[in-house]
């Protein structure tokens, strides 16, 4: 070690002091690090003097003295600057016990341009598909529905057979299925959870099932992975009129009381009768626009009365109970509500998309 070491300490001191600025606490930290009574670096440098051979002591000693003086002077200067702040801040000078620093209250160090932008908050954000899911869950929770969950990797029974889709049923064509090497499949809809819940629970059953589903399809309007929410109500004496009112109530709560709801006969293997449900276009007031392809109506969900075959498959007395089921695409609703044009954008992992929903 030689005078070179002194130079190093000198420059690191100057840098530390510079960055401490007029912050009393920071200046005090610098003081402790370099000139502290017990742990200061100067102590260590002084101790080193004794170990040096005589011929080197002279130069080193002189340098050390200079450094000590400089550090003391700079620290005094810095403390003055700190104290000055406090002195200038006469209106409310406070000493906090146990803290070396002083803070000033009720003054400004300089005139502030109040039109400068504020420091941005680092806010987190939920994915729009989850925003929509939570909104829909909330509506149904208020109506007394439970929110259920089930596996994404399913067996053929729950995904197809229990839902009245036997092997070789043409409806399997519409739901291009991903199969796993071990014989399971990726669920093509959230409906298997209906079957699972009915297998283990007695009516009355009132559930919704949000979740991730998979179909072997990819283009602007299809993604191999997407999200659905499913509803099921089973009890004695459930009617088509109950289904209709429930869907109207839900869609009014989700969109607005102003939307018209239209049920059209449709076909699903697990409901009989089935209905496709449209809402009047929320963008053009049914004058016709791009979103509704000029028709004034937007197809929003599929529904129907539970097919008695499904009840029989899961062990519910189909003579005694009736029920209804419905399902809709969460991604589709998110795209509709927030104006997102490409379904696949939702799953690209782009944080810029989500930040818009902060």
């Amino acid at each position: 070690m030689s005078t070179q070491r002194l130079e190093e300490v000198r420059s690191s001191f100057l840098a530390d002091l510079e960055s401490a600025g007029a912050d009393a606490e920071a200046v005090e930290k610098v003081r402790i690090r370099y000139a502290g009574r017990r742990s200061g670096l100067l102590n260590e440098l002084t101790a080193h003097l004794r170990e040096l051979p005589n011929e080197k002591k002279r130069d080193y000693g002189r340098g050390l003295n200079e450094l000590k003086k400089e550090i003391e002077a700079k620290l005094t200067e810095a403390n003055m600057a700190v104290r000055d702040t406090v002195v200038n801040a006469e209106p409310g000078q406070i000493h906090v016990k146990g803290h070396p620093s002083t803070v000033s209250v009720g003054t400004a160090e300089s005139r502030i341009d109040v039109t400068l932008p504020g420091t941005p908050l680092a806010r987190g954000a939920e994915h729009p598909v989850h925003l929509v899911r939570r909104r829909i869950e909330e509506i149904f929770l208020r109506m007394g529905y439970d929110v259920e969950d089930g596996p994404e990797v399913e067996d053929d029974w729950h995904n197809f057979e229990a839902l009245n889709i036997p092997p070789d049923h043409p409806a399997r064509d519409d739901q291009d299925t991903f199969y796993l090497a071990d014989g399971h499949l990726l669920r093509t809809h959230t409906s298997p959870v209906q079957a699972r819940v009915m297998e283990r629970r007695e009516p009355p059953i009132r559930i919704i099932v949000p979740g991730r589903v998979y179909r072997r399809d990819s283009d602007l309007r299809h993604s191999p992975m997407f999200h659905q929410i499913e509803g099921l109500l089973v009890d004695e004496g459930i009617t088509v009129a109950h289904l209709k009112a429930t869907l109207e109530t839900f869609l009014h709560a989700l969109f607005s009381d102003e939307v018209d709801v239209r049920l059209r006969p449709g076909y699903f293997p697990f409901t009989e009768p089935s209905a496709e449900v449209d809402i009047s276009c929320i963008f053009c007031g049914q004058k016709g626009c791009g979103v509704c392809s000029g028709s004034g109506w937007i197809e929003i969900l599929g529904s129907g009365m539970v097919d008695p075959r499904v009840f029989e498959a899961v062990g519910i007395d189909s003579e005694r109970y009736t029920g209804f089921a419905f399902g809709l695409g969460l991604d589709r609703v998110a795209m509709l509500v927030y104006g997102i044009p490409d379904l696949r954008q939702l799953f690209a992992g782009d944080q810029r998309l989500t930040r818009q929903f902060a």
Partner: protein
Amino acid sequence: MIFDSEWLTEHLDGAPDLDTLAARLTDCGCLVELREAGDGAEKWDVEVTTNRPDAMNHRGLAREAAVAADAVMRPLEFALEETGEDAASLASVEVEEGSACSRYVARVIRSVSVGSSPDWMQRRLLNCGVRPINAVVDATNYVLLELGQPLHAFDLDLVRGRRIIVRPAETGEKLMTLDGEERELDPSMLMIADAGGVIALAGIMGGADSEIHEGTTDVLLESAHFDALSVRRTARRLGMRTEASHRFERGCDPEMAAVACDRAAALIAELTGGRVCKDRIDVYPQPWEGQRMEFSVAALSAFAGLEIPTQRALEIFRGLGFAPEGQGDLIAVTVPPFRVDIERVPDLYEEVIRHVGYDAIPSQLPILGTTPGQRNPNWELVDRAREAAVSAGLAEVMTFSFIDPEIDDQVTTGPLCPGAPLPLDNPLAQNQGTMRRSLLPGMLAAAGANLNQGERSLAYFEQGRVFSLGGDGPEEHERLGVVLSAEDGKTEERFARLKGVVEHLIDEVGLPAVRWVRGGAPWLIADAGAVLTDDDGTAIGLAGMLSAELAARWDLRQDVAVAELDLARAAEPAPPRFEPLPRHPAVTADMTVEHSAELSYSELEEAVRELKSEQVSSVDLAARYTGAGLPEGSVRTTLRLVYRHPERSLTQDEVNAAQESLRRRLAERLGITFA
């Protein structure tokens, strides 16, 4: 399916204007999706649901339209003249017993001259999207579109032995189909053969060798009824989908086979100058018998939630061809042969409800017990995790559940591997070939994409499932992943920021307390990575700076901090409990320790916590220093201790004494020095 509006209304008496007709069809379940101007008529794209093959032809849709729009179906009328020559003397049909063919009707038409079909026919075919070929083939396609019966015409001279044999294919047999492809056959497939071998795929496509051509003079016209499942399986196996297979798969009308055969024969005769031989050849061992069904109108009304008059139900079934009979509250019907979808009473309810219309049904909310809704605990868990991440300032992303198997290999050697991989049998692409066993690959690919978009700092999370194959089959595990990246800052600061986020998540989600143990290869840098283990030493997470090797894999040109947590061990955090607020002031005292870098901070802090006076209410890190002034491999750590007595104010001397005692004991325990 595309319909020609003129062709459709031709079957109706008293049809309304086209706008009304389209609206009524939509209301009863045949959605008219698109109407366009065609040649001489409108082209209607009508979505007929897959359970209704009977409406996938003009006459079938007209039947629906008649009931929906208060019109009347015209009877199907055409003139068929036969010669004295017996068809059976010119050709024979054998259906092997047990074959998936319940009826085979054939007619022979002689002396045809094959030219093109007339304009009116070509126009209608083109409007429906069918390319005209020649008069004979066009006539069969025309009848398919009109009556829904698939037909096939053979050149009778090319049918060897003039014998038609319906039988399964033999192993090794091959057939060149009309589309010029050679098909390999197996015994699961039903064939039309002649004396020399296979000449057509039953219900799917004819063979090239017996095709109608310009020189054809005698035609054998096939109008058969093949089993839906057999056609479906064969078509799928051969990767074929034709107009004929599409209809057979969904179910055809066995009674229509005869009518359609006559209709097509009459058309061929008219268009080609041919003569129709006497009688149909008809192999129909078990003629169709209509199923009788009965239902109560009161039960139907109760189910619908609307009082439906018996008269209205009778009208609907009459129009739909169910020959209903009413007796008091009961209606008995015979299911017509074209309605393959009607099996049980609720199927009958649907017929009435869709023609009465959902508009007519009142809205009435169901009345159930006023029990509050519950959320499944797993939803509570994942939403708690998601909310924790959002409260840490992170943006949520979603990436695909399937990833590149090559990248998935990294999971096998890393910590947090949930089990064996779960590959897809039929992935859309090679790089989506296996179910993810970690969230990191998808999230890191997203990091590359985000940086390429010009994002400078990354702060996002993903919550989702990873998948593996365990001893009892597939397993799903809920995970939470974090990616952080900033343009500048020291590694230490980046790591500290990540750790702050992870500690917050662990707390909020309710995961057990973890130890941060150096590790995390191959994902993390050896010097800046940690595996998070619980009390048993089981890894429940990893966190640290991404290794150079993996950063290169996704071409990340900026340091990225990543973390992944498994949520299985989470329990709902206990609700906070109020502690009485201290009434006496605290005294803060710092303690600076110089020690070897081998002594980890957590070891130091643990020792302090163990040896400290009971009046110390908190121990925190105040400062840490390495570098100039310290020997190589040494660290200076300043701890901030807060002393507090519940009943009185502590004096500076008391605190000094406590500090001194602590120093002494620490020095003994750890062999460290004090500054």
